[in-house]
């Protein structure tokens, strides 16, 4: 009846370099009233599928080459523009990823939520506003009476996403397309939004196509899961069944290679492992090696004492305490994980330790030497020993330098290696160490994939032979399969070079996987600090507890 059937859908992109088969002959059904999760990594074609449904793709370059999408007895792919306009926002609504950029900053939130009703001529102006208020209440936007005339910038990220949901659901659509609706949100907010979305759609009776790269999130919300890989559907099943007994090696890999809260691998399995041998089984629960006892000298190898970083807000003159009297210590050769939500000051802390952000007060003791107040030019020797790897490997490489130049430059500045030949040899061995080839030397950053670029960033950080590396959300922007590779690489390097990491992330699972100790940050302060296992298994504060509870659990991953 009201099922949505996607049958043989083919969407190709005609680019100058040739035809990209973004979606190549896929079939699936969205049963009425159910939540279907569409999962895949970047480039798998999940978003293209989602946009094809509403004919929202730019044509050209995109072109639907075949197939049909049956919605209420009609083929959406062949519907006229006029017909599509009556469907969009009324029978089929969409929620986008970024709540910051999807609301018009010049319209009040209420107006925008009411707009779909007015556009489709469903009710009068006053009635629409009333219904919008009602809907905003239902999605949990608080104090709505006081916010009658509020503009989007007066809402927090979570509230904006709630407003987006209200806008999508106000027409009581039959189908809701949600394209990564929680990816830009903090975990605690994400958990609430997921719950809300599921509950509301059940009340209204909408079905949802939930697109996400995150299996954990999908497991939380979806009744059925469709997994896409390189434009094809590789497996689809009910959520329970898919997680309990995945059949396709890629799906197995996808489930296994993301660090889970319960998992305890030292080396994460990767997609290659599964793809190469069909019968690959990751080693179970290999316990982390019992580390050698740390000597007293190494214990306080890097010590942060009462560190504060305050910012003056330009237009209000208010002081923002981004980091507020933080005290920490990191033993040599270990990893300290810093977890926190956006705005908790974790990134500022990492940068302040490296002196990339001016410190307001406090000490950073590096082997008993305070480097917090040195003049910038006195830092040269420390710069060499402390490095940073950033979140976005696209932005952190100079697009106009070849890899060779990028890796040679730090050695040149720090006078490492006697002559050009010697330095070049080191560059080659660095590349091999991070898993790239010497034939890549003359290429520019844009010729590499995201994972490869992050490897280059790692190589650059290693080029000065550092002892301490700050990893600032360095795997957050990556697909899980790439994330596993980079995490494994970091782990290997730590063992081989006795490196010390400060690993900053919003993702507790990742931090738990890699860190020996964890500090939970909130509003510029350390909420909790201790051994990784202790923090995760036995959180002491309610905030940490809430963080733990918000993590999407794939505890149904019984097989591994």
């Amino acid at each position, binding site marked *: 009846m009201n099922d949505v059937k996607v049958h043989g859908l083919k969407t190709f992109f005609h680019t100058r370099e040739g035809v990209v088969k973004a979606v190549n002959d896929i079939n699936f059904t969205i049963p009425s009233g159910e939540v279907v999760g569409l999962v895949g990594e970047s480039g798998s074609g999940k978003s293209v599928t989602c946009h094809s449904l509403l004919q929202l793709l730019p044509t050209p370059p995109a072109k639907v080459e075949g197939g049909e999408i049956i919605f209420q007895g009609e083929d959406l792919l062949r519907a006229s523009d006029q017909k599509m306009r009556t469907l969009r926002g009324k029978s089929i609504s969409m929620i986008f990823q970024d709540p910051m950029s999807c609301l018009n900053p010049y319209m009040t939130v209420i107006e925008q939520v009411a707009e779909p009703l007015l556009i489709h001529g469903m009710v009068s102006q006053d009635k629409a506003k009333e219904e919008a208020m009602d809907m905003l209440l239902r999605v949990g936007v608080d104090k709505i009476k006081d916010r009658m005339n509020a503009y989007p910038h007066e809402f927090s990220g979570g509230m904006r996403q709630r407003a987006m949901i209200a806008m999508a659901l106000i027409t009581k659509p039959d189908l809701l397309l949600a394209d990564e609706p929680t990816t830009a949100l903090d975990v605690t907010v994400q958990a609430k939004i997921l719950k809300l979305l599921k509950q509301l759609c059940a009340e209204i009776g909408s079905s949802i196509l939930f697109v996400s790269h995150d299996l954990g999130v999908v497991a939380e919300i979806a009744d059925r899961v469709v997994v896409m890989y390189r434009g094809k559907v590789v497996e689809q099943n009910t959520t329970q069944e898919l997680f309990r007994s995945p059949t396709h090696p890629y799906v197995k890999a996808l489930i296994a290679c993301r660090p889970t809260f319960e998992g305890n691998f030292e080396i994460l399995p990767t997609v290659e492992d599964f793809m190469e041998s069909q019968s690959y089984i990751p080693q179970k629960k290999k316990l982390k090696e019992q580390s050698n006892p740390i000597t007293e000298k190494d214990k306080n190898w890097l010590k942060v004492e009462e560190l504060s970083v305050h910012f003056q807000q330009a237009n209000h003159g208010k002081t923002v305490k981004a980091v507020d009297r933080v005290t920490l210590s990191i033993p040599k050769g270990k990893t300290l994980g810093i977890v926190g939500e956006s705005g908790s000051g974790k990134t500022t802390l990492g940068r302040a330790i490296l002196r990339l952000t001016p410190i307001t007060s406090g000490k950073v003791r590096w082997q008993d030497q305070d480097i917090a107040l040195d003049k910038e030019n006195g830092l040269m020797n420390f710069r060499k020993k*402390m490095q*940073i790897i*950033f979140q976005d490997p696209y932005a*952190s*490489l100079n697009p106009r330098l070849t890899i060779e*130049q990028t890796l040679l430059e730090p050695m040149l*500045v720090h006078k490492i290696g006697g002559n050009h030949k010697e330095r070049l040899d080191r560059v080659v061995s660095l590349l091999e160490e991070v898993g790239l080839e010497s034939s890549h030397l003359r290429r520019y950053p844009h010729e590499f994939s995201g994972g490869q670029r992050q490897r280059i960033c790692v190589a650059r950080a290693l080029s000065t032979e550092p002892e301490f590396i700050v990893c600032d959300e360095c795997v957050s922007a990556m697909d899980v399969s790439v994330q596993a590779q980079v995490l494994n690489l970091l782990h290997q390097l730590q063992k081989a070079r006795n490196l010390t990491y400060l690993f900053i992330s919003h993702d507790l699972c990742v931090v738990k996987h890699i860190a020996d100790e964890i500090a939970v940050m909130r509003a510029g302060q350390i909420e909790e600090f201790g051994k990784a296992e202790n923090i995760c298994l036995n959180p002491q504060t309610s905030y940490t507890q809430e963080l733990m509870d918000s993590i999407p659990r794939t505890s149904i991953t019984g097989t591994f």
Partner: protein
Amino acid sequence: MSEAQGASLAKDAWIRLRSNRMALVSLIILAIIVSFSFIGPFFCEYKYDEQNLDEQFLGPNQQHWFGTDSLGRDLFARTSYGGRISLAVGFLATTVSLLIGVSYGMVAGYVGGKTDAILMRIVDILYSLPFTIFVILLMVLFGRNFLLLFLAIGAVEWLTMARITRAQTLNLKRAEFIEAARALGFSHSRILFHHILPNLLGPIIVYATLTVPAVMLLEAALSFLGLGVQAPMASWGSLIKEGAEKMDVAPWLITFPGIFFCLSLFCLNFIGDGLRDALDPKSSKD
């Protein structure tokens, strides 16, 4: 070491530029125009300021290839002579404005804060000075001098260049690769010249190719006011002005200098586009 790197970037860029047909053809045409301006007069038996009142307003013919003007001066000689002045003004003034504007804008954008505010307010003040009065003032103070023309034009054109450079630098400064460079302990000058400047090349080159024609037009306007090139000397700008007045009597007077002027502008634009693409590693298709 860094010379070697520079060489390889320039070599890559040259290879890419060569494969851009439009840019290559433009380069050749521009080379022909330049050589026409500098060696053209040797092939002509008339001098640019040689008057012959018996031969006023002759159309193009065997003696006078481009015809003659109201005083019977040979237009071929005048056009090629005028090319020297126009091209020289165009390129020199643009270079001057590039050098001042880019370094000024880069410093303002990179240092930021109060320095930025002060430097940019100075630019605003200079913007508000009326150009003609500024030039007349210069002329009064230093006497009429051809070099002053470069100086005056350069002094005005660098302002926009500084603003563009500053805005781009502000954006780049926050890029993570600049922060990575700081974390690696690179000096400020290295970051500025090795990391920021190459990434500014695109907008700078495009704007520079727009500046050259703008400067040539400005020179024509100054000449018209009697502040620039004076008769019997000529530039393309002044020739076009003259030709425009006599268009109904002698259309060739505007046609020939006009063709040269337009051709060089087209060429410069194509070369500019080609250079921008050639210097951007992302545009290569291999």
